[in-house]
């Protein structure tokens, strides 16, 4: 029973992280009909920005309070990644609007590879896994053999809060209405006075900011980051968004948790072959694509975000 609960907690943590990444994929797809594959590497870059900020703080303000450290690490990650998202939109996605979908996908893949390689080559000793500092207090509560960590709870609740905020922003505000209008029909939205280019930039900043949280969360959860994690996270986020049905935020969240469930179930069901968990999870994704070609919640042409 304890083991089961432990698996559940792991699965939920992973699922939250994946959902945050998948929300970005699905937002971009909703507004511009593109897959931005470099999104996973954006997450990786957020982790590294956080780490870099932490080292700077350690160097210039050694005695800074823990709360402020967390704040500045998050702020740096969100700011850098949001600007990067807007630059991606402005200089890669927008110029390729008339091109075939495959070109955009390839271009963002190449951009992701460039980001990955840039971190590997130019971050100090970037090719080796880096320890990520424990920024949150390591209190934990013991229930029998079950160990409930305080920082996990904080991470999970923060993730949930961000998803709820993104959701409220999209459904309840005027800005969100403009985003939804652009997603439905860019031309009609422009005729109604929506500044389409601005909305695209805002959407990319928003999606990337969610990814920044996922990146810092990833560092705090595993306490180790690696230049390579973006590829896997990108593929997982993409899979999660596709399983849920591209362009649908609820679908992306479900997809994230489904993928995490698959991985955890893979470990739980086959403890003798836990290394095969990704093989299992991606295998299920392929089978799922054969059964439901446009995701569990089928893509709707009229309403996407």
């Amino acid at each position, binding site marked *: 029973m304890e083991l089961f609960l432990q698996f559940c907690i792991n699965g939920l943590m992973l699922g939250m992280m994946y959902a945050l990444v998948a929300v970005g994929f699905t937002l971009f797809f909703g507004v511009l009909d593109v897959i931005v594959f470099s999104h996973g590497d954006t997450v990786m870059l957020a982790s590294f920005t956080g780490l870099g900020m932490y080292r700077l703080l350690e160097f210039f303000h050694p005695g800074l309070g823990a709360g402020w450290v967390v704040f500045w690490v998050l702020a740096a990650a969100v700011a850098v990644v949001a600007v990067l998202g807007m630059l991606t939109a402005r200089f890669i996605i927008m110029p390729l609007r008339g091109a075939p979908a495959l070109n955009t996908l390839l271009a963002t893949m190449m951009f992701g590879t460039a980001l990955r390689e840039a971190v590997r080559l130019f971050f100090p000793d970037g090719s080796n896994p880096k320890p990520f500092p424990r920024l949150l207090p390591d209190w934990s509560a013991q229930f029998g053999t079950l160990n409930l960590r305080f920082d996990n709870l904080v991470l999970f609740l923060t993730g949930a809060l961000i998803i709820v905020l993104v959701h409220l922003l999209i459904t309840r505000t005027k800005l969100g209405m403009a985003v939804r209008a652009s997603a439905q029909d860019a031309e009609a939205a422009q005729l109604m006075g929506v500044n389409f280019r601005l909305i695209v930039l805002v959407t990319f900043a928003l999606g990337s900011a969610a990814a920044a949280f996922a990146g810092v969360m990833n560092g705090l959860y595993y306490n180790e980051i690696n230049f390579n994690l973006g590829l896997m996270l990108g593929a997982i986020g993409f899979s999660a968004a596709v399983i849920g049905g591209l362009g649908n935020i609820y679908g992306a969240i479900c997809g994230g948790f489904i993928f995490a469930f698959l991985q955890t179930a893979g470990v739980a069901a086959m403890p003798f072959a836990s290394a095969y968990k*990704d093989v299992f999870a991606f295998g299920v994704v392929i089978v799922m694509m054969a059964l439901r070609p446009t995701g569990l919640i089928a893509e709707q042409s009229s309403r996407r975000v």
Partner: protein
Amino acid sequence: MRRRSRDLVPPGPAGCILLALCLLGWSVLFLKAEEQSHILVYMITSGMMVLVAALSGLHAGISATVQDNELTWDICLILVMLALLLIFCDDHYTLFLLGTIMIYAVTVLGLNVQLGCAGVINFSAASFFGIGGYTAALLSGSGLPPLLALPLGGAAAALTGCVLLLPMLRTSGHYAALVTMAFALLFRVFLEVSEWFGGPQGLPVPPLNLFGTDFSKDAHFGNLDVSFYVKYDAVCLVLLCLVFSFVRRLERSWIGLAMDAVRSDETASACFGINIARWKIFAFTTGNLLAGVAGALYAMMLGYISPANFAFADSLLFLSILLLGGLGNSWGVIPATIFVVVVPEKFQVIQEYRYFIYSALVLFMIVFRPAGLLPRTSRHYFGRPA
């Protein structure tokens, strides 16, 4: 001015021979160079020459001469390759490089059938390449003749590809891209953790053996040492010639036309009675078959394979070659492969940065010149229009 520089290249077979001689001299100079500074100078000069040729209209003369005398040009190129093999017959490293170029070119030609002709997205070319290689490794204990590893590797890759057919045909666009991407990641992880396939360490591969000659031993003719790579390169050359002419003929045939129609507009081609699923399956399987054959030969030439060679990044590398050369243009594949394989190997300074440079380069290419360096031209069935 334009007219005159165009006429600098003599038309007819003589022009082809002249071009081939220039190419041979240049490649020998480049491959012989060891000093990094010399290599840099060679690369800059080549770039300048290409630029000057493109600006002055000389390239129009070159391409006209080549297109008018395709047979002569093909023979000239094969002779250039054979001459290179002779000149570098004791240089293991250069010969290995030449073999790698030819094998990569075969794989990219397969990818060209998939993506360039039928528009089938494949992000797992390196995986099918790897399946061929692992087939060659696993056949070592079976007692079958090693040459059989080539067709069997291709067959294994094609059969594995069939597993992906159903999800590939049912999905389209981004969803289809995900299927092959998931497969590429799955395959790499599978190889790393599977004991049977040697895990991260990989497996040794037995050398090729043809007509009783062992391909892993050097030959001696008098006081001339001939590297064993010469034999592999000869096999690679034969394979490349066969595959190249096959792909060219495929493009030119009604099959190529049908595949082009499927790529450009599925609905319209279905209205004209073209069976979309059939040609997608054909293109996907053919491409995987070629990748598998190439992978088996590569594994035997290398003598050893490990999962590190078949990562997602390598699939992207194959795709980059195709896009650099020009999607759909078989002729573009050769210079693009040479560029991508040789430059980082010779110019060691950028070896570490190569994936970074390629990705940035291809990114610029997609944004600014999406048709590639040598864009595909339309077919000319009845001679060249004046």
